[in-house]
């Protein structure tokens, strides 16, 4: 009970500050009569929201979520292969780094050329940007087993697959989750970059089109929606992490 009220109290601080900030913003825009195309007031942003924003949000969320999930499955699988084969790791890791250092923004037009302006090019963009964190963290996590734990498994004749499922994978979970949390916002970035280059729906498309029309309130609403998408994904992963990794309390974000 007291923990509950404490938590409510804790969440009161950011809520109060956010409300205060919005109020200041509104007042500043009105009192200084800032033109709407430069900075719309919060109320103007709210009145620009309609049903289409919701459907564009769902599109972007769908693209990023698909990219996020596929990249993480693929990245984890690659990490498993790396951990079990030194030659493959040595041969492919530089490629993975090359992929990481190539700016996604530079690749996005190519993706659209290859895969068209639809769903797929955005999913791939999102995957490309999410792939590296999970790969690196999983490799690190899968190798992070205690030497003595490995000896324990060896003493009792544990097989390679037992060492993987009962030791390596659980050991790597905290590393995997920290990659997942990093990727939540990256996944949205990937989808939006993809939408910038060529799309007819999604939040990136909304931002782009509204900028052509100087429709700043709509632009703001799309920017805020994309931020909220990232926040939502991050929060879901955080919740899942607390359930799965019950044995450590991670304080870092």
């Amino acid at each position, binding site marked *: 009970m007291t923990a509950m009220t404490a938590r409510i109290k804790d969440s009161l601080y950011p809520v109060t500050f956010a409300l205060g900030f919005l109020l200041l913003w509104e007042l500043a825009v009105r009192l200084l009569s800032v033109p709407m195309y430069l900075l719309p007031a919060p109320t103007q942003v709210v009145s620009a929201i309609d049903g289409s924003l919701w459907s564009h949000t769902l599109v972007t969320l769908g693209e990023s979520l698909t990219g996020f999930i596929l990249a993480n499955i693929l990245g984890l699988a690659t990490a498993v292969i790396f951990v079990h084969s030194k030659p493959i790791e040595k041969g492919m890791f530089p490629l993975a780094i090359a992929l990481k250092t190539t700016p996604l923004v530079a690749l996005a037009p190519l993706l659209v050329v290859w895969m068209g302006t639809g769903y797929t090019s955005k999913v791939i963009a999102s995957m490309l940007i999410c792939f590296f964190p999970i790969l690196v963290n999983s490799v690190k996590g899968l190798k992070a087993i205690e030497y003595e734990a490995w*000896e*324990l498994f*060896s003493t009792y*004749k544990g097989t390679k697959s037992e060492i993987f499922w*009962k030791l390596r994978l659980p050991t790597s979970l905290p590393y995997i989750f920290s990659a997942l949390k990093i990727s939540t916002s990256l996944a949205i970035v990937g989808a939006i970059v993809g939408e910038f280059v060529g799309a007819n729906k999604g939040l990136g498309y909304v931002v782009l089109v509204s900028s052509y029309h100087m429709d700043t309130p709509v632009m703001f609403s799309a920017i805020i929606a994309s931020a909220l998408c990232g926040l939502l994904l991050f929060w879901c992963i955080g919740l899942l992490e607390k359930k799965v990794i*019950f044995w450590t309390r991670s304080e870092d974000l």
Partner: protein
Amino acid sequence: MTTAMKEQMDSASVQNPGTRETMLSLRNCSLSFGNVPVLDKVSLDVYRNEFISILGPSGCGKSTTLRLMLRLLSPEAGGEVAYSSPDLSLGMVFQKPVLMPWLSALQNVMLPLELGEKKFSKGEARDKAESALRLVGLQDYLNHFPHQLSGGMQQRAAIARALAADPTVLLMDEPFGALDELTREKLNFELLRLWESPETSLSSIVMVTHSIHESALLSDRVVMMSPRPAGVTDIIPVALPSPREAGMEELPEFHRTVKELRKRVKHL
């Protein structure tokens, strides 16, 4: 091994120490890591029903010696690690508890029973794990996770895990090194009680320690190792009566042994 057999062996070895049965022996074992020689022709027999302590400066190769015994490492050519029988069952307790944080105490103790060629059904493993935890006094903490247990309790769980697999020879690498003095003292005597208990199949214990006091109090023989490259420099028998009990630190023989060990440590 049945209890009757164990008792028989006990009396046999007491009456006839000259022909004691060897459980495990290291013969002429040398080992280097890269070009750093660590062990130099180590030979050591571990007899049935004895408690051996290995004493030596840190970094001299005590843990490495235990790893040889476990066959996690192999000696260089010319050396040999021999077991009394091919299916000699060894247990290992590390300096750290090495518990899986995602498993409960019970699941941790069941873990070795469920590895490799499965000798036990889930139910059997559970029963064995429960009784091992009961032996170390953790029967009320079966479903606790390692982070909910104190350091002493974690090390007890690690001992239970080693015991659950019914080892004949138990190897321990500074098992209580990380614990406070009081807990350590308590666990030392618990260990002796477990060793003597007919409920365990335990016949021999080899314990690495850096405490002269502990080695004199617990063991039948103290093996002294020299600094790297280490060999066995001395094996000192401890003539304290068994079973060992609290209060034996007062006996003149205890002081004699401690003094003797101190002297040899200085010479290393």
